[in-house]
């Protein structure tokens, strides 16, 4: 197995690799909202409308190519990690772009199920469903 942590490269390239991704976000290094997780699931809104029921027509020029790529990709519901892998962008950069689209009403975000043990842990129905899915593997 090839180790995929390449410490030396990362050390040397970090300055260079920092520049381009954050150019895509126009210099922003944090999303508008910070509640996305790696497995928050995003779905592109078809026929988006504003609160008055008027169809949203986002100026296509207001969207960057990466935004459009996300909207195309999330026609099939996808997790943040999958979008990041698809765009080949770091997770934190991807989250900024996703937040833009959610704020514009073009993308829906679904938070992961709460499974925190402190909050009672995952419910048995969920575990049973996971178990059933795994058994079919």
């Amino acid at each position: 197995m090839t180790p995929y942590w390449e410490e030396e490269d990362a050390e040397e390239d970090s300055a260079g690799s920092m520049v381009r991704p954050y150019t895509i976000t126009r210099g922003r290094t944090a999303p508008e909202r910070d509640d996305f997780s790696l497995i928050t699931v995003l779905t592109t809104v078809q026929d988006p409308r504003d609160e008055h029921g008027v169809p949203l027509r986002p100026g296509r020029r207001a969207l960057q190519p990466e935004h459009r790529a996300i909207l195309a990709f999330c026609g099939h519901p996808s997790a943040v990690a999958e979008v990041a892998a698809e765009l080949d962008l770091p997770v934190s950069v991807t989250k900024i772009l996703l937040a833009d689209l959610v704020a514009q009403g073009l993308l829906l975000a679904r938070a992961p199920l709460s499974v925190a043990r402190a909050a009672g842990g995952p419910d048995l129905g969920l575990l049973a469903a996971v178990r059933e899915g795994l058994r079919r593997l």
Partner: protein
Amino acid sequence: MTSSQAAPAAVKILIAGGFGVGKTTMVGAVSEVAPLRTEEYLTRASIGVDDLAGVDQKDTTTVALDFGRITVSSELVVYLFGTPGQERFWFMWNDLVNGALGGVVIADTRRLESSFASIDFFESRGIPFVVAINCFHGQNTRSAAEIRDALDLDPQVPLLVGDVRERPFGRDALLALVDHLMSLPAEVEPVPAG
């Protein structure tokens, strides 16, 4: 608002263990897609090793992880995240760890110590886990009891021995984790943070 498809709910399971022990191999063996790779920037400020007033780019490092998915139904997807090989990096990646259903720690009998850190980590975070001993080509000269002893494993933590390249073994390890989760008593008091 309408969407083309309702979004499924997502849960995640962490696949941990020492460097090169077969994490991505296991993810690939059970995932419905070839493992995907994603990266994140982590700043050393997150680990708190130094006083980092004025963090600059030199203090940022890129960590990669591989992940896969298992679609249980149109309403539920399980994501499997192989943790970065060096624990010091994933320990500071809260987003990776938070909200995980549980973990599978893969260990290699020839160097069990390389998985100590993962076990310690799950224990300290109160994340339930199982241990999957990866023995390529059935090369395992140690009994389960010996391995348990060497890993100083709590008796209730499930331990399986097999080949992580094989889907049935990966499946069984994940099933053992789910059964373990189902057998755990409900938490009465919150798990201390950190």
